[in-house]
């Protein structure tokens, strides 16, 4: 399990570390995570697109009973965030009391530890949202 995940996260480093998605040249629509095929076109011409690094909470919840790798972080906010690029993505909200996690909250993305299996495992990094 750990080995499979290490390889997957490694492959996904551009999107997890630098929020790199892609853009359909024909329609201008931005995709994150990046897609090779888009609705209605299985072979679109895509270009790399770096998300702007900010967004707004459009849906959210508070996780109080967290799955194992996140137990020590509970309670924490989890939100669907819309970026100025027209992308909606899911991210943890960090460094904020959960009562302040609300629709309309303006956020920016920071580089954070996402999880680790245990004290001896690989540490997985990526983006989380913090209030602006």
């Amino acid at each position, binding site marked *: 399990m750990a080995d499979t995940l290490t390889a997957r996260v490694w492959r996904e480093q551009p999107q997890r570390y630098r929020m790199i998605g892609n853009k359909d040249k024909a329609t201008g629509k931005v995709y994150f995570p990046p897609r090779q095929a888009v609705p209605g076109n299985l072979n679109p011409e895509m270009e790399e697109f770096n998300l702007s690094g900010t967004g707004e909470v459009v849906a959210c919840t508070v996780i109080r009973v967290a799955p194992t790798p996140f137990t020590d*972080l509970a309670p924490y906010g989890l939100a669907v965030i819309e970026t100025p690029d027209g992308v909606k993505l899911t991210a943890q909200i*960090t460094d904020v009391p959960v009562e302040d996690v609300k629709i309309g909250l303006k956020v920016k993305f*920071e580089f954070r*530890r996402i999880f680790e299996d245990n004290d001896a495992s690989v*540490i997985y990094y990526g983006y989380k949202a913090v209030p602006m």
Partner: protein
Amino acid sequence: MAVGIIGWGADIPRNRIKLETIAAVWGADAPSYKKGLLLFEKSVPSPDQDVITLSVEASRYALLRAGIDPTLIGALYIGSESHPYAVKPSGTTVAEAIGCGHFTHCADFEFACKAGSEAMYVAHSHVKAGEMPYAMGIGADTSQGAPGDALEYSASAGAAAFIFGTDKVVATVDHTVSWMSDTPDFWRREHEHYPQHAGRFTGEPAYFRTTLGAANALMENSGMKPEDFAYCVFHQPNGKFPQRAAKMMGFDIDSPQFKVGWLTPWLGNTYSGASPLGLSAILDVAKPGDKIFMVSYGSGAGSDGFVFTVTDEIENVRNNAPFTRPQLDDDKHYLSYGEYAKYRRKIRKNS
């Protein structure tokens, strides 16, 4: 060809713990600690922050100011004594996260609290030698201090990153110096959680002898006097030591010359980040023509010294990233000792 800093950035966690909160747990006399060490509160990393994440944020801010293509950064060095891995570099993750590309010479440095200035020193040397157009040096720590030990009142977290180059230099490096001796005042053996220190031995024979050794050499080599400098910054393990070192060198500790880069009373000791964060706070406000005197200190023991001259270019990039001092003063979240112990993984669990 002028070589110097072309971009800088700092990252400080939002969490704080007051000295009184720690003292209350251990039955210590908070007023005497505050008076004796000039420490009031310190930063604490969130559970999802470490040397790598703090370095990434500081580096991104440095890149915003430098305005360069990150793939042209030829070397990236992080100085720290709290790298998340014992074996696996912090620098590769940081380089990947800021988009350095693959042709980057990457290394993690260690030399107690001067690992950050060491990274800056080598990064500057590469550019000066003409080996690469840009190089980055980072000082970062999520410092360790054993529960109840004097270090617990100071050990804090933060990072500062500096990109060196030859185009659009915001602060030229005019002089450098390094001074070292085999002085075992503070150490941490392999597999130990917390560092040990030699109590009062960390003062005169270690911090002061080393810091002043470098500072006096820097003054002599540069042919300058304290009054020639707009700002000075020293390693700051507590509030008192840098104050005393600055005074012994002839700087005015009651003026902005010293106070702008003096962060420890409210930040704590960010170990490898300490003097670099002080420099970052100075660059945030420095004016063209200002001279800056910087001397780091790392136990074991050594000091790196730099003389910088701020250029006109600083006005063009200063506002491109967040300043250091507001990160320290604004939007703070105070922790209880219990939360602090959990965040710093001081509570033993079975899982």
